[in-house]
């Protein structure tokens, strides 16, 4: 393995010589690169241990029974450790939402875009203001619903309309609609 031919190699690897990489330097480069690869692959578990754990990932779907929600009422559930608003809209609220020209909005979406066919009166959104993540008011009875009758975030004054769309204030987008599916009266979110 080791070059024992002797005399010519008294000087150590520190002198690379001007004739480029010699055989005996190649072995140091290979050893160091392998050590580098090893060190880098150790980083993978060290970094990925901070990603969500298996139990957190497994709890990433939520079932909510919406049969008892009356028109005009909202319920709050928890989805991925964050609040989820489920609101059954009144005909007036639907009308108010559809009155607006979607194209004129900051984040143009129609109510139909944000609900599911056959369930146009059920608005499922995250209860997380798209500005900096506060929980908007308006889901519970008696709370300030803001100037557009939907949700109002008191942190920095974002107003959402009855379809959960941003209408005024600093929030950049509408309240997010998570992926969900109806299974009878039960919504499975996630």
């Amino acid at each position, binding site marked *: 393995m080791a070059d024992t031919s002797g005399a010519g190699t008294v000087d150590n690897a520190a002198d690379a010589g001007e004739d480029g990489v010699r055989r005996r330097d190649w072995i140091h480069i290979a050893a160091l690169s392998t050590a580098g690869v090893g060190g880098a692959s150790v980083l993978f*578990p060290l970094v990925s241990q901070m990603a969500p754990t298996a139990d957190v990932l497994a709890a990433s779907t939520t079932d909510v029974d919406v049969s008892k929600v009356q028109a005009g009422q909202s319920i709050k559930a928890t989805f991925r450790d964050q609040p989820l608003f489920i609101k059954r809209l009144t005909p007036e609220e639907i009308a108010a939402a559809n009155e607006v020209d979607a194209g004129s909005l900051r984040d143009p979406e129609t109510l139909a875009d944000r609900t599911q066919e056959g369930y146009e009166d059920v608005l499922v959104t995250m209860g997380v203001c798209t500005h900096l993540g506060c929980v908007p008011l308006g889901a519970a009875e008696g709370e300030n619903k803001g100037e557009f009758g939907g949700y109002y975030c008191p942190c920095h004054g974002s107003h959402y309309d009855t379809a959960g769309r941003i209408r005024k204030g600093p929030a950049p987008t509408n309240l997010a609609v998570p992926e969900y599916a109806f299974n009878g009266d039960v919504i499975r979110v996630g």
Partner: protein
Amino acid sequence: MSFAWAKQYEPQSGFTKWIDEKLPLPRLVYNAIGAGYPVPRNLNYMWNFGVLAGFCLVLQIVTGVILAMHYASNTEVAFGQVEHIMRNVNWGWMMRYAHANGASFFFIVIYLHIFRGLYYSSYKAPREMIWLLGVVIFLLMMATAFMGYVLPWGQMSFWGAKVITGLFGAIPFVGEPLQVWLVGGYAPNDSTLNRFFSLHFLLPFVIAGVVILHIWALHIPGSSNPTGVEVKKESDTVPFHPYYTAKDGFGLGVFLIAFTFMVFFLPNFLGHPDNYIEANPLSTPAHIVPEWYFLPFYAILRAFTGDLTIPFTGIVLIQAKLLGVIAMFGSILVWFFLPWLDKSPVRSGHYRPMFKKFFWFGLIPTMIVLTICGGAPAEEPYVLLSQIFTAYYFLHFLVILPIVSQIEVPKPLPFSITEAVLGSDKEPAAQPA
């Protein structure tokens, strides 16, 4: 601080020059573990373990900090949190097994490092301070390891904590209040677990600090070597880098193969099954044993079975329990006095025929037998054996070493390291040392 022929750090670029003026950290590293540190050219593989111990400390700190991200030091949940790490955390099982086995390998490395020092008398002048700091590191390691073993809150954790804090109860007058203060209650509880977690997190950084002092003290006289003859001239040394960095790199590879083999194939071999049972303050395991690295000292603790009494009067001077505690702490404290107990002018065990016999046929078997006895139940013949070998342990350091160093006729030493390395392989010519 270093030898006259040590290479000087020369910054190559404008940037490194600028750094060198403002904060000469690259220069420090260059002189500490780079080409600027001349090291005896004849070091054998036993000199690999210092660097390996440093690696183990880093390994334990890195895996430990990660485990702390997922652990909770509350008696209600601690055991379950460890299982959470094992089952739910990404690669958590690997982190935990690496940390648990890392502790064992740290002690394997440190024991080899210590016994290398004992055989080659690395503790002798001018290296007393390195040795003293090393003993301090060892004591800190024992405290850290003990508290770490409590954190999973298994049966052995709990009862180990109870028994070891109980040692302090043996101290006359203040023992019992001291024990209650240490534990923060009458038996290990939430307060105990929390303070152990806090200190277990803190102490490794204290160790790192003492390690820096240890290495600093090493660089004053430079490394010892297997002949024990001091470095005299440039041909006695080689620069640490690349010679010993390459050798340590190879040593690290061998170490990692052994270590990962245990982590991936026998991760629980050095542990105890009882620690997979959650702590139960109402039921003691049939057979309490500490981790293997404490066993010799545990055997010394248990060797004292009789109270020290005045014969025929029944008056107890010192209870057996206290005698055991004194002996156990004393067994490590004697190491502090080694540089002054062993006055032989010759360092290396190679050239000390009597010392060598006592080392290989006295001390080493003693440590092995005491380890076995410490892990065995307190019954014959183990009690008897641990008593005989405990006696030898103290006699070796306190009586044999001083006397041997007085009467022994050492073999002739090589004139220099260069001669030892390059001279005739058979018999180095006797030169006036």
